[in-house]
């Protein structure tokens, strides 16, 4: 087979669905087996393309949830009720189906050990997906870079990868914005300066920060971090939105 992915060029390929994992009521992880995968870096994404019978095509970008070291390519997709692509991926896709994708894509929202740390990962909602790839990569290479995570979700039931994150060796903290169960030990409410100052290393230690989530969440977190004295150039952001 001729190698499809010439370096730097993107080619569409058909990946088979190996497994589907329900993460929360609204999110599902697609475990994929692309035939020609050149490998990826933690934080990169893929474009997924659906083609209707009449030829209409819709294309969306999804973060890669798996580490480069994992056996399969995983995407975790949140169902947006008025979306063109996500309802199909979350509700209709079945194991054995084929999914058209291209990637890996992106170089900005990527963490590699050579970038150093300490590493602070701040995620809102499904913005945790690329951060999970970074955490898994960090664990897989047994990195000694100190890492902390602040993850904002609406309720316990909406925490994606909950068991994995609770078990992680990294310092992972949660805030629940809408409902907290009895005896909840984590933070409450939306992220703010107090919370970020509590979780983060001081600006003088120059952490490298990755913030991913809905646009408003990212703007708030990045703004607060800059106000706390963190260097804008060491804060990398990725915004999710209904498109």
């Amino acid at each position, binding site marked *: 087979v001729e190698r499809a992915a010439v370096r*730097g060029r993107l080619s569409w390929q058909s990946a088979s669905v190996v497994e589907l994992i329900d993460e929360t009521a609204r999110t599902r992880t697609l475990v994929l087996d692309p035939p020609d995968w050149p490998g990826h870096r933690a934080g990169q994404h893929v474009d997924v393309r659906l083609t209707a019978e009449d030829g209409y095509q819709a294309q969306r970008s999804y973060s890669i949830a798996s580490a480069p070291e994992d056996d399969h390519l995983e995407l975790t997709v949140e169902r947006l009720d008025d979306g063109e692509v996500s309802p199909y991926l979350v509700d209709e896709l079945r194991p054995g189906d084929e999914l058209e994708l291209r990637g890996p894509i992106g170089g900005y929202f990527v963490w590699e050990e050579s970038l150093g740390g300490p590493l602070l990962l701040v995620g809102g909602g499904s913005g945790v997906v690329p951060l999970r790839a970074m955490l898994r990569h960090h664990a897989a290479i047994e990195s000694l870079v100190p890492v902390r995570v602040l993850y904002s979700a609406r309720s316990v039931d909406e925490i994606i990868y909950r068991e994995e994150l609770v078990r992680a060796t990294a310092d992972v903290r949660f805030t629940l914005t809408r409902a907290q169960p009895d005896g909840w030990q984590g933070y409450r409410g939306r992220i703010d300066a107090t919370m970020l100052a509590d979780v983060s290393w001081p600006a003088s230690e120059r952490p490298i920060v990755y913030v991913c989530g809905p646009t408003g969440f990212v703007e708030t977190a990045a703004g607060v971090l800059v106000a706390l004295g963190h260097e804008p150039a060491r804060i990398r952001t990725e915004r999710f939105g209904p498109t």
Partner: protein
Amino acid sequence: MSALDGNAIAGQLCEVFGREMTMSTGVCAGCGAAGRLGELETYVRGPGTVGRCRRCKAVLVVLVTIRETTCVDLRGLAGLELEPQEA
């Protein structure tokens, strides 16, 4: 409509430029601000894709694809510094 960022159009930029572009730096012809294309303020819901300067909101990049032909308008960019490619 809420804006996304340049990460969301990394695939389209790669199609146009033939290489990863989100780490490359664009200079706004309007206000002179320099920023990674990954940080572009990006609107993807229109008939085309629009990337604006995060500081002054000027239009830097417009990509419109019609019948498989992509039109690229970069008039808002005064400069583009390409990040070295990974091996």
